[in-house]
């Protein structure tokens, strides 16, 4: 039965247009971030174009900055940062969320009360305000640190969702049966509950990934992102600082924002696609 179910997911997954489109886009950018640096011989910060700012051309696909830096080189480099943040920040956020939410939901009682309280508190405190202040403390910041702090502040809503989910799961028959049959709770968690939770985790992670990249972009844009290296948000920041809007250097600030939007958008679409795959009710027959 389970295998049949699994194959059924796969079947829908492969046929769900939202999922297909979404994944393709994300994977495309991921690929670009990986092989991109090979497509250009320019380093992100080198002053390669003596002419300064030039619109996109066969030589500089995305044009060049005021200083004659290759925008494409910066772009692909920035993509990496974006994915890194999404992966680490989103991953961490999901992880903490799952641990907290699950413990709360599964243990219940006082533990739940306490954790739930904590979640709600952290939930109310606006993340960015905190991040701004935290990052302001760090004298020199890297993408890694940034992602970690993002992860540390982004978990609450995941915790909430997972908690609710766990509640519903632990009251299901098969769990009771397992408990009756004297299975160790740890074993129950991994054999009975975890598998039923996987779909949920996946969805949560995707959303966290998107959220993390957006927050990171915001931080970078207001100049509290990495003080070393380049990122898409930082590119926009520089573009604005150096008057790209007024001097009409659209190629400097359009690609980075567009990339973020497309990636995150694609992630959301993927998410809905998966949702449809997991919940037959949402499928359109």
């Amino acid at each position: 039965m389970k295998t049949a179910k699994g194959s059924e997911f796969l079947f829908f997954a492969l046929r769900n247009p939202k999922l297909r489109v979404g994944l393709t886009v994300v994977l495309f950018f991921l690929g670009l971030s990986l092989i991109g640096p090979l497509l250009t011989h320019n380093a992100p910060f080198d002053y390669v174009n003596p002419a300064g700012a030039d619109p996109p051309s066969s030589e500089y696909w995305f044009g060049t900055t005021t200083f004659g830096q290759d925008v494409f080189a910066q772009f692909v480099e920035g993509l990496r940062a974006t994915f890194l943040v999404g992966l680490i920040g989103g991953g961490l956020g999901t992880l903490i969320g799952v641990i907290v939410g699950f413990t709360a939901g599964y243990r219940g009682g006082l533990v739940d009360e306490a954790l739930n309280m904590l979640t709600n508190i952290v939930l109310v405190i606006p993340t960015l305000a905190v991040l701004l202040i935290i990052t302001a403390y760090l004298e020199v910041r890297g993408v890694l640190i940034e992602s970690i702090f993002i992860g540390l502040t982004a978990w609450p809503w995941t915790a909430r969702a997972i908690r609710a989910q766990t509640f519903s799961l632990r009251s299901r028959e098969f769990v009771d049966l397992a408990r009756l049959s004297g299975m160790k709770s740890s074993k129950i968690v991994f054999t009975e509950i975890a598998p039923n939770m996987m779909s949920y985790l996946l969805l949560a992670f995707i959303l966290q990934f998107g959220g993390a990249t957006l927050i990171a972009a915001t931080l970078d844009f207001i100049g509290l992102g990495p003080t070393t290296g380049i990122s898409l948000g930082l590119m926009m920041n520089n573009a604005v600082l150096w008057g790209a809007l007024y001097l009409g250097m659209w190629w400097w600030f359009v690609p980075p924002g567009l990339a973020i939007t497309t990636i995150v958008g694609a992630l959301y679409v993927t998410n809905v696609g998966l949702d449809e795959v997991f919940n037959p009710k949402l499928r359109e027959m």
Partner: protein
Amino acid sequence: MRRYFGRKFLIYGLTFLLAVTIDWLIPRFMPGDPIANMLSRAALNADAAQVLYTYYTHAFRLDLPIWQQYLNFWNALFHGDLGISTYLFPTPVVRVLLRAVPYDIALLLPAILLSWLAGNRFGAFAARTKWLDNTVLPLGYILTATPYMWLGILLAWVLGIVLGLFPIAGAYSFDLSPHLSWRFLSDVVWHWFLPFASLFLVQFGGWAIGMRNMIIYELEADYSHYLEALGSPRRLVRNYAFRNALLPQLSGLALQLGVIVAGALVTEVVFSYPGIGYLLLSAIQNQDYFLVQGCFLFIIIGVLVANFAIDIVYVLVDPRTRKGMTGEKA
């Protein structure tokens, strides 16, 4: 219901306590020495600098023992005294903030409410209407995925610079000094529009998507099926589904507040709109930790108030909370 609110208040209380404590800790972690920074703005002779340094240190009560500073902080807080801004020395922080708050309200309140209402209507409209679902909805996804500042930049570029329809910085023109007149108000609204628009659009997308997904769940709920089985027209079924889908959307609003604040913050930066967010950034950049404290505090209070407002509305619209059956939202 009493239990419901009691619980809420407890949470808000604790949140506030925590927030204030974090707030108090801010300067104690700040790298560098704000007063030294402030003095270094003007090249001074060493002795004068020294004298002033000690002077300010005392003025800002940084020379007291930590615990006492903490108590003083609370005490001062309840007297509405958040210290003096070093960045805008010698203006009291509270005064600086009170000048900024109206801009935030003017920006956030309409943006949040309108986008929520419009977004939900639209989402419900699109749901299960194939062509809309497949054509217009992707727009929603794109909008909600757009980084606030990027949309801001694009609007500023296209509408502000290329077409020159709107100003893209400040709250009102430089050839006006504030007064109650049509000229001034229209000028203010004119400056207000772009920041508002970029906030509105991004959120609109989010709510549309949210409602679209919610209402599909509701349309598949048992009560919807029953109504169909009794042959009640689609209109009624959808109407019910919509109303019920609004509830999770409402709690969604509470959950989103943090993100929205973030959006407002960065939008204000893009359009140099003199709200709290804009202030917070300059405060951080200028190491003015009293101002940072103030901004953070005001933001927290704002969010708490908003949350509470939403709780009340929620109780009004959802009988279940009123009957004390379920305490939690979402």
